[in-house]
């Protein structure tokens, strides 16, 4: 990855039933998006303990994405 280009590391928490499914659909439709996101599947964003978000930042995430 080029150091000059802005390329943030983003951590995503995706709800199995909606956002994870939407990401699957994006794939099926071949929608192209930047490769900066790394995802963790959860069964519902209700599972998202705020501690996970803080830990994500502590581990160096430039941003946290949640979809649910």
């Amino acid at each position, binding site marked *: 990855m080029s150091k000059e280009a802005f390329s943030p590391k983003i951590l995503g928490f995706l709800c199995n039933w909606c956002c994870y499914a939407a990401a699957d659909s994006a*794939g099926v439709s071949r929608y*192209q998006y930047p490769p900066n996101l790394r*995802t*963790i599947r959860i069964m519902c964003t*209700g599972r*998202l303990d705020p*501690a996970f978000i803080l830990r994500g930042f502590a581990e*160096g*995430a430039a941003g946290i994405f949640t979809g649910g």
Partner: protein
Amino acid sequence: MVEAGRSPNIEIVSNADLLSLDGKPGNFTATVRVRPRYIDAEACTACGLCTKYCPRHMVDGYNEGLGITRPIHIDYPQAVPATYYIDPSACLFLQHGTCQICVPVCRSRAIDFSQQPTERKLAVGAVIMAPGFGRVPEAALTRYGYGQHPDVVTSIEFERLLNPSGPFKGEVRCISDQRHPHRIAFIQCVGSRDLGCDNGYCSSVCCMYALKEAMVAKEHDPECEITIYYMDMRTQGKDFDAARKRAEEHSGIRFVRAKVAAVTSWDQGLKLTYATMDGSHGFTGYDMVVLSVGLDAPTDAGKLAAIGGFALNRYDFCRTSTFAPLESSSPGVYVAGAFQGPKDIPESVTQAAAAAGIATGRLKTQRGTGVILKSYPTEKTADAEAPRIGVWICHCGINISGVVDVHKVTDYAGQMENVVYFNDSMYSCSQDAQETIKEKIKEHKLNRVVIAACSPRTHEPLFQETLKDAGLNRSLFEMVNIRDHCSWVHANEPEAATQKSMDLVRMGVAKARLIQPLPEQTVPVNKSALIIGGGVAGMTAALTLADQGFPCTIVERQDLLGGMLRQAHYNLPGDDVPGFLKNLVDKVKKNKLIDVLTNAALLATEGFVGNFASVVQETKGKKMVEHTIDHGVILVATGGRPHRPAKVLGVELPKSDRIVTQQELEAQLAGKAKNRAPGSVVMIQCAGSRGDDLAYCSKICCNEAVKNALKIKEINPASQVIVLYREMRTYGYAEDAYRQAREKGVLFVPYTMDNKPVLAAKGKGVKVSYHDPILREAVELAPELLVLSVGLVPESTDELSKLLKIPVNADKFFLEAHAKLRPVELPVAGIFLAGLAHAPKPLEEIIVQAQAAAAKAAMPLVRGKVEVEPIVSHVDQDTCIGCGICASLCPFQAIQMLKVDNKRKAETIAASCKACGICAAHCPTFAISMGGFTNEQINAQIQAFGAIDKE
């Protein structure tokens, strides 16, 4: 489809024709001819190499002839069975004895030109006819320039154009020169409502699919201008009017009420000439014209009817009756889907469930015979052992490896701690790959498996099945999605995609190290049902369940059974409705398995699927009796009632016996009074509906108006009947009655909301003034009788919604779990839905829906147990402080508070838990862990995410 393909108890005989059907209900022999596929279905891995090498081109029938394929091919990648086949009409070897290039190309040696047609005899107890629908006659299409201009397409062709797997990969392009069309017109009622091609009926689905196609096309190209030319927009289904509004207001689709005269070539494009209601003509230029074709009877309907020994109706669909909508005239032969009459997906799915339910009910003595139950080896205990992880990275043909460097990712996975086996795989989901996985699990004593391939949403169950076959607990599995979430969406960035795949695999392996086996849980089921509502839906459901051998209790609020059907005297086809109702009530009362509580109301329900306990209060004279009933499932059939609005078209109408509703008119017409059919009648459609008191269309009012108009004409042919309507929605075969009413002199005059009829009280009656678009002038009348076609509202769904935690939509009707896939189930497991409480609909559809809901409700009762996904929450009662936050937050009532050694503790009810994890996220003492999604596992994934830069 995949589910049906995978079930060990469903055999799919594809590429086959029914030759004969002998025997009697319960004991039929069906003779079936299986055409050769020239490919060994067991050996084929659907890799697609053969298609690549096949030298011959042919027109792609699956894409409606809009694309090109090869004689050896598969229609589309997700086809079931996922096996290629050879079209003998185009294959060089089968036609000319040459070529055979495909034979050595196929690595699985699946190609077999020696295959011959075979005959099979199948022993079956019942037959369900579901051949779907056929195409409307070509003549209906050529009238609009189809065949003369390539850019006049059918809606089915347009559907393929919109599809990502279609001829232009989802781009809408003109067939003539592949330019993007900027102006598209839809023409409705092509081959429907058209006596010219002997299709007098309305196909019921075209208005909705045209809306859908127009909206999708608009999403593809927001600049595109789309116009729909129609006679009546028939969006009578649940929430369909809302979709039409969206199409008009948000998507900017234009609606023109006009008859299209012709479509002709014009410059580069097409000229569409039309005539509107007021007699004026116009023409507009378009790039593309879509013909909304109707549904015709299947081409081989006659042949099927001869084999099955059943009758067809005048349009060659299967003939059925209002009261037994899914039974053909041949006993033991049932029908479902469009072959019963044109219908959409939700109704077809409902009919299919109902037909299966009726068939299995009649065959209940043979229940369980021949069922294949899969058995698995005993699971090894894995929790105590150190993780031994096996990682497979999938190529998915070229779907993944075309972008991601699979070998690099595989090598990377191999270096990770605890990974003792790693490899890449061409298709990790293929049958042979499952065998390899099983082998390697045993050979390397693997106790965790990570597969980096596609989505766990589609493929997790398949791999979990493989784990079970290999004696591992199915929870010891983690899937990494490097296709849908990576190679497919970063197609132009192979390096970044490879890096992302490596990161995702690292996160997956980090989680896998901490995965623990989870116990499989099953809960026994109380084999009985509680049915709320004793109308036609509740009673039909009760009888269907009793047919299956299950006891049920009907709770009816009123003092007798029958519900709204008690007000019905006759119907459009002329059946004996009161006789049917009497017979139904008698059957329910006589049935020993059915318990009826009248003057009764549900007070409380506790529990979960398989084990509900309800309190029902019954009023007997002045006494109140409370019953506690244990039951396994609940069926909601609380019905609805006509809603008489206070204001009609903005005017408050006086109470007068000269202003009645259709229901009141029906009672009057069914009576014996001499003047029951007055000399002048005006009917107002949509009185209080579609934007007034009620936002929605009640689906039945147009049919009711036509029914009563015909009755008036029958009794008093001289009577002047005028129906003021917005859109006549006499869908399906009711269109015939609509035509008949017009022939008999009933005047149908359309009105619009910006030029609506004016009502004014006049003495005891009412004065009506309206604009007649044909006369092009105002008309004023003082009819002897004003009839309001009022809509239907559900019976008090609010209360029950709170009691059972089941949702309602904006119009207060109960909201099913999924409009298409689960139309008779509610989102809460074990609760089912039928009748007017779901949405307004006619009698025939209510009967089918009740049969379907009963069939679905019978499923857990037949099994006798319900299986619970093991990923549910678990409360560690030593850490739990009994604060109850989790119980109050749980949206599914899946946590109960108990006294354990005199201390308040929370406990999960596994059968109700949906694994959302809200409880775990809010527990102040971390006492709740989610199976498969523990804090430790998610933290490990986050840490592995952070390791990107640390390497």
